């Protein structure tokens, strides 16, 4: 007993230290300084890697969990709690007694069958809380059972319910007291107590918050089931935190809060209820968890019977910590203890039985955990699973996102369905989970070898992240809770103890850093031997080398690199060095990069920036994602603060790491990076602890910590690879985001109706086809022109003599005649072309020898006419206008090369943006291939645009065009292959269907379109097209409609109206746009062009343009009121919009 107290004392001291640590951490956070010690840093690093807001994520889980609005703070608390609870678990599972398990196997089989019901019933909690503290689970099970009773007899009431439950608790304690007391266990007890007390202290806020909320909920008095569930949740939570003796206390709490419901327990169960409840309790234990829970019970037994002093002490701590909140509870809880001990005397045998039950199920589970789980799940639940919802609170919140919702939504009449569905989903992930479990075991073994207990924050964080990752992966299956830390821990223990199973783990660390910071020395320290010769004054390492060795039986490979130089002028040397490093690591890349710098060097003025940037340039920013910052010379004393007194070591380390982290962030260009920091001290005079390990001024043993950080990164990378979580590395995340192809853009380019490539002699075919429509009707007009009386044009002098009316008449007459003349010319041209065509067709039909001759004759002129497009010159001459400055010759070359001019550039700018080249080939006299390419370059970026199109005519009315496009899209090139087939079978209706495939970056998108062209008559035509584009499961739909209404004889009559509509749907985001354009001739020499467009977001544009060849300045004035009107209209609508 004396021993026990001593141990407790000792551990108390430790605990205080721990608490202090926590507090200092808190301070640091307040100061907005990041990461006072590595644990904190690591945490944040994880946070930052997790994405924008991991806490919100947790909060989500909570919300779903309780259907209560939780604040972010709350979730943070939860996080804390979770950490502590993990620590508890770590402690309690240090020693697992396996022998007991085997023995009790035979006896209990029968009982197992009897409690099947209960077991299956409690699948839910089991799944969710197997991470929770074992003791909490025991009592939880009991409460569950009593609640079970509550449900069965809702009406009944009893005042003794509370005592009943507590008695049950007491029973368990005493029963486990029958276990054997061993010195080992003593120690355990001590440790368990200290940790639990600590966790109670740290986690207080969280508990309080939750309890309060639960209270509210329960007192609101809704469905019994829900309330019970939540009440239970509270209890559970309490167990979770101060779990050893807290169960008494929380029992009371529950009584206070949910008294009404619990009152019924006693009545329903009566004498039998005790037994029942115990059985159920046994069933509750998750198969994966049992060993530890049992162990725990044993421990507790010792504590209550063997070391009463210890128990009371612990009780005190709990009370102290909770005293502020529930003072009236403390006397009661004392009573409970008494009761508990009383009952231990009374109800021994019964409990034994229940223990057997537990052991039995445990054996089952250890044989095949998956099987047993599915077995139990398949059984029909005896009561609504709604109670299961209480369980999640024990877990770190994020792990149970689905379950509560299921329970909340589904009424308690059909819980089985929910159960089943979740079960099947779980099975799918079993294999992955098994693998993950191996990783976990591996990591625990590693940390064990490094002498780190699972309550090391790094270890806890890694385990938490593994759990989180698993949960993210298995989001649909709510059973991801099968974390089974304890099993992993037990397995790790066993494997380590056996020492025969070789650890399948090796870690490659690459060391980078400035010259002389101690890279080689650090490597020597890691292996604890002189692997590399170091020299203080010379460049020790001249080339990249590979050092392999074993640290605590773990294979570690370290890549030592030559030192880098900080000066800008030396960066090319650095580059050389780093390139050799890159070549070296190509075949065997490192898992971790250790960037070393000296702790006691104040690299300010961004002195390391050149160096860091060079590293980033050579290796890419991803090198920093898996980098650890090592600060050598960590034992050096911090410099004097501003007031002359020495600043604290922790503060110094924090600031220094902050500086380096910030520099790395800048160099990597990713502000979310948070590299964990590890301290290193290679000096032989460094303080060591008894085991000969070097200890830093803050009491940290650095080497295991450094290695643990490295291993943790590797483990997490392994887990990521296993779970294929994409969002864990920020770099990857960015990459995937940027690569989403701009579907709407591609689609709209696909929908664009393109003219088909044509043979030179067929250049005007299309128009002809269309104009065929009403050719016959033109004849009378044609003759009309010939019938007109002769007309003599007047000279200017003659014109001046005419009176006004005469002038008008003359002009009218002239216009009419001009029109007719032009019409006739067009007709003749058309006729001529037709004749040519006919002629060509005839030639083809002729015998071979003859046709060749003619072909030759004909092909020559066909090759020559390269249409020379002329730039439209501006109305006035201006030497600054590039159109005037750059004229080019019309060469007879088949290649048409033109400059791309920028007309809207700055004055006196060169105005020359790029070059455009075009050419039309004819392959085999049949297939036209057109090529056009354009290269433009401005100050920022160069654009390439290349288009290759050809078309094949097959049959009479069908033609297929093939095209290849290449153009810049952002920073990447988009390659598009498209093909389109046109059907010209009807005169009035032409249909086309097309396909296109675009490769942009590394994503391929495919599109399909259908187009229909309807020509109603000479004046009206309409083009409709619709299409879809898909890429990576993402689909965009779009359609366009274009209608054109034009003058009867279009090229002459200038009236033209078009209406365009387009619809685009992408991601459920519908965009509709329309535009209308009308061109109306006013009088003889003026044109009015009005254009308006509008989209469904309310943005639009109206433009009116009048051009005139006569001087009509005054007429412009007439537009003023029009504009005014439009403006006022526009403003009024705008105001209306704002008003809404």
């Amino acid at each position, binding site marked *: 007993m004396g021993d026990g107290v001593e141990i407790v004392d000792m551990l108390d001291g430790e605990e205080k230290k721990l608490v202090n640590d926590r507090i200092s951490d808190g301070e640091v956070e307040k100061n907005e300084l990041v990461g006072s010690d590595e644990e904190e840093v690591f945490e944040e690093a994880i946070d930052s890697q997790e994405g924008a807001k991991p806490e919100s994520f947790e909060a989500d889980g909570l919300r779903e969990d309780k259907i209560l609005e939780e604040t972010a703070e709350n979730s943070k608390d939860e996080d804390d709690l979770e950490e502590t609870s993990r620590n508890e678990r770590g402690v309690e599972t240090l020693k697992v007694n396996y022998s007991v398990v085997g023995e009790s196997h035979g006896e209990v089989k029968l009982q197992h069958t009897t409690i099947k019901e209960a077991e299956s019933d409690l699948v839910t909690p089991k799944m969710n809380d197997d991470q929770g503290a074992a003791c909490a689970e025991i009592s939880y099970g009991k409460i569950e059972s009593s609640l079970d009773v509550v449900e069965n007899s809702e009406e009944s009431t009893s005042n003794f319910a509370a005592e009943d439950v507590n008695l049950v608790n007491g029973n368990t304690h005493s029963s486990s007291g029958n276990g054997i007391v061993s010195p080992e266990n003593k120690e355990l007890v001590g440790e368990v107590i200290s940790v639990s007390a600590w966790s109670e202290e740290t986690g207080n806020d969280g508990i309080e918050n939750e309890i309060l909320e639960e209270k509210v909920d329960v007192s609101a008095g809704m469905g019994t089931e829900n309330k019970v569930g939540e009440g239970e949740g509270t209890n559970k939570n309490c167990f979770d935190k101060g779990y050893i003796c807290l169960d008494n206390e929380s029992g009371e709490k529950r009584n206070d809060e949910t008294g009404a419901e619990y009152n019924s327990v006693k009545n329903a169960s009566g004498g039998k209820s005790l037994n029942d409840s115990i059985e159920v309790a046994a069933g509750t234990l998750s198969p994966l968890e049992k060993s530890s829970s049992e162990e725990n019970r044993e421990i507790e037994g010792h504590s209550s019977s063997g070391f009463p002093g210890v128990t009371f002490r612990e009780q005190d701590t709990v009370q102290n910590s909770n005293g502020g909140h529930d003072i009236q509870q403390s006397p009661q809880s004392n009573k409970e203890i008494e009761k508990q001990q009383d009952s231990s005397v009374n109800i021994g045998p019964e409990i034994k039985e229940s223990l057997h039950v537990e052991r039995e199920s445990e054996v089952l589970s250890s044989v095949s955990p998956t099987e047993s789980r599915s077995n139990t799940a398949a059984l029909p639940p005896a009561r609504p699973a709604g109670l299961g919802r209480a369980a999640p609170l024990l877990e770190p919140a994020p792990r149970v996102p689905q379950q509560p919702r299921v329970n909340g939504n589904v009424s308690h009449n059909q819980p089985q369905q929910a159960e089943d569905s979740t079960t099947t989903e779980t099975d799918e992930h079993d294999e992955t989970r098994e693998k993950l479990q191996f990783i976990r075991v591996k990591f625990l073994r590693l940390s064990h070898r490094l002498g780190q207990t699972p309550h090391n924050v790094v270890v806890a964080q890694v385990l938490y992240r593994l759990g989180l990752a698993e949960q993210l992966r298995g989001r649909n299956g709510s059973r991801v809770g099968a974390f089974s830390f304890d099993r992993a821990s037990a397995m790790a223990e066993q494997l380590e103890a056996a020492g025969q199973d070789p650890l399948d783990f090796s870690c490659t660390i690459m060391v980078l850093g400035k*010259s002389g910071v101690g890279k080689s020395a650090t490597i020597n320290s890691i292996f604890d031997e002189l692997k590399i010769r170091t020299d203080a004054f010379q460049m020790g390492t001249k080339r990249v080398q590979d050092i392999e060795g074993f640290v605590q039986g773990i294979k570690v490979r370290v890549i030592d690199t030559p030192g880098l130089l900080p000066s800008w002028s030396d960066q090319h040397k650095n580059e050389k060095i780093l390139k050799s490093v890159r070549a070296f690591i190509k075949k065997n890349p490192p898992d971790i990069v250790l960037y070393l710098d000296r702790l006691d060097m104040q690299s*300010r003025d961004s*002195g390391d920036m050149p160096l860091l940037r060079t590293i980033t340039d050579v290796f890419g920013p991803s090198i920093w994602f898996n980098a650890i910052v090592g600060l050598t010379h960590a034992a050096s004393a911090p410099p004097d603060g*501003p007031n002359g007194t020495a600043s604290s070591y922790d503060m110094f380390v924090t600031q220094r790491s902050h500086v380096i982290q910030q520099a790395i962030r800048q160099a990597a260009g990713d502000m979310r990076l948070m590299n964990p920091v590890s301290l290193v001290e290679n000096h032989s005079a460094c303080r060591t602890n008894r085991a000969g390990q070097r200890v830093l001024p803050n009491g940290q043993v650095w080497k295991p910590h450094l290695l643990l950080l490295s291993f943790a990164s590797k483990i997490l990378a392994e887990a990521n690879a296993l779970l294929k979580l994409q969002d864990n590395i920020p770099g990857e995340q960015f990459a995937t985001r940027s690569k989403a192809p701009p579907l709407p853009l591609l689609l709209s380019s696909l929908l664009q109706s393109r003219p088909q490539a044509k043979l030179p002699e067929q250049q005007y075919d299309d128009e002809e086809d269309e104009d065929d429509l009403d050719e016959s009707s033109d004849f009378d007009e044609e003759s009309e022109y010939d019938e007109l009386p002769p007309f003599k044009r007047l000279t200017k002098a003659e014109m001046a003599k005419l009176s006004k009316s005469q002038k008008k008449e003359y002009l009218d007459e002239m216009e009419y005649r001009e029109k007719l003349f032009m019409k006739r010319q067009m007709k003749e041209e058309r006729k001529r072309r037709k004749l040519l065509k006919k002629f060509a067709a005839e030639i083809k039909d002729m015998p071979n020898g003859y046709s060749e001759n003619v072909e030759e004759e004909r092909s020559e002129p066909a090759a020559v006419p390269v249409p020379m497009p002329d730039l439209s010159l501006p109305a006035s001459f201006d030497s600054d206008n590039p159109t005037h400055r750059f004229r080019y010759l019309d060469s007879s070359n088949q290649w048409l090369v033109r400059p791309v001019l920028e007309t809207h550039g700055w004055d006196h700018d060169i105005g020359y943006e790029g070059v455009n080249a075009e050419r039309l080939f004819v392959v085999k006299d049949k297939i036209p291939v057109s090529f056009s390419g354009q290269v433009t370059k401005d100050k920022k970026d160069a654009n390439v645009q290349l288009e290759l199109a050809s078309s094949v005519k097959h049959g009479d009315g069908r033609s297929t065009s093939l095209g290849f496009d290449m153009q810049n899209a952002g920073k990447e090139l988009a390659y598009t292959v498209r093909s389109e087939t046109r059907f010209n079978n009807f005169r009035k209706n032409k249909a086309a269907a097309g396909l296109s495939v675009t490769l942009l970056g590394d994503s391929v998108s495919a599109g399909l379109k259908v187009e229909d062209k309807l020509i109603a008559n000479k004046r009206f035509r309409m083009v409709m097209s619709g299409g879809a584009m898909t890429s990576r499961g993402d689909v965009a739909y779009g359609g366009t409609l274009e209608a054109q209404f034009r003058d009867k004889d279009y090229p002459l009559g200038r009236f033209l109206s078009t209406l365009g509509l387009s619809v685009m749907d992408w991601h459920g985001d519908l965009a509709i746009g329309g535009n209308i354009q009308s061109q109306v001739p006013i009088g003889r020499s003026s044109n009015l062009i009005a254009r308006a467009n509008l989209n469904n977001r309310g943005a639009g544009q109206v433009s009116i343009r009048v051009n005139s060849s006569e001087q009509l300045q005054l007429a412009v004035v007439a537009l003023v009121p029009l504009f005014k009107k439009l403006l006022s209209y526009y403003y009024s609508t705008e105001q209306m919009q704002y008003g809404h």
Partner: protein
Amino acid sequence: MAALQTPREWIGIQQFPPATQSKLLEILGKYKEEDVSSLTVLVMGKGGVGKSSTVNSVIGEKAAAVSTFQSEGLRPTLVSRSRSGFTLNIIDTPGLIEGGYVNDQAINIIKRFLLNMTIDVLLYVDRLDVYRVDDLDRQVVSAITDAFGKEIWKKSALVLTHAQFSPPDGLNYNSFVSRRSDALLKVIRTGAQLKKQDMQGSSTPIILVENSGRCHKNDSDEKILPDGTSWIPNLLNTITEISFNGNKAIHVDKKLVEGPNPNQRGKRLIPLIFAFQYLLVMKPLVRAIKSDVTRESKPAWELRDSGLASRRS
């Protein structure tokens, strides 16, 4: 300018332990004997090596702002303290390195600040506990040389801060110090492009400094180095020695600040070059052209035309 302000009384000296005080006063007495009323010390070096801390330690009060992680702006600060008629001016300069480069702007500011002052002693500060020298050190040294001329190194001392540390394995303290200082002196020699014989006359003294509050102290409460010397009097003593070592103090005048005027360079050569051009370039050219003109054979039509023209007119 800053030099014009009346120097404050050196109160900080009283804050030293009596043993140090007496030593310091003894040194100050030496100046009195030599009839020197003021001494200007320029402190230069890379950023973060402890220049300002050294100044503070010497003065005995917090005269220059020090912070571990931030550098103070680009302006040098002049700290002058007078004690019984003798004025000690210490000019603390900002770190010369920024982002891997020597900060030319900072050097220019320092130069302008020092206009019309005389530098008696230059203290080049670096850390003792750094193992390597790199190109940056050389650049700093050559920047200083460019700014003030080679001669300044004859009036300089190498100050090594963080002197209280235990050298890495296998080295004793003294040999470490000598190797470190040798390395730095070599850098200074190459950076300042000093020839061997330049350095022979006066070897740059080494001063070890420990500014930390954790500095060990001896029985009489003096701050001492690991080798047992009390470093503050030692520092002042060395400064005194340098100031009397016979080499000329560096006076920073306009010429030094602004550098040589390119317009003035080679002015005297102008007439010479002119004469050269006239006699050797222009004359032959003119001669060649004239002879060419006389030798010219005109085509027939031109002769006819000119003949016509002459006839007409």
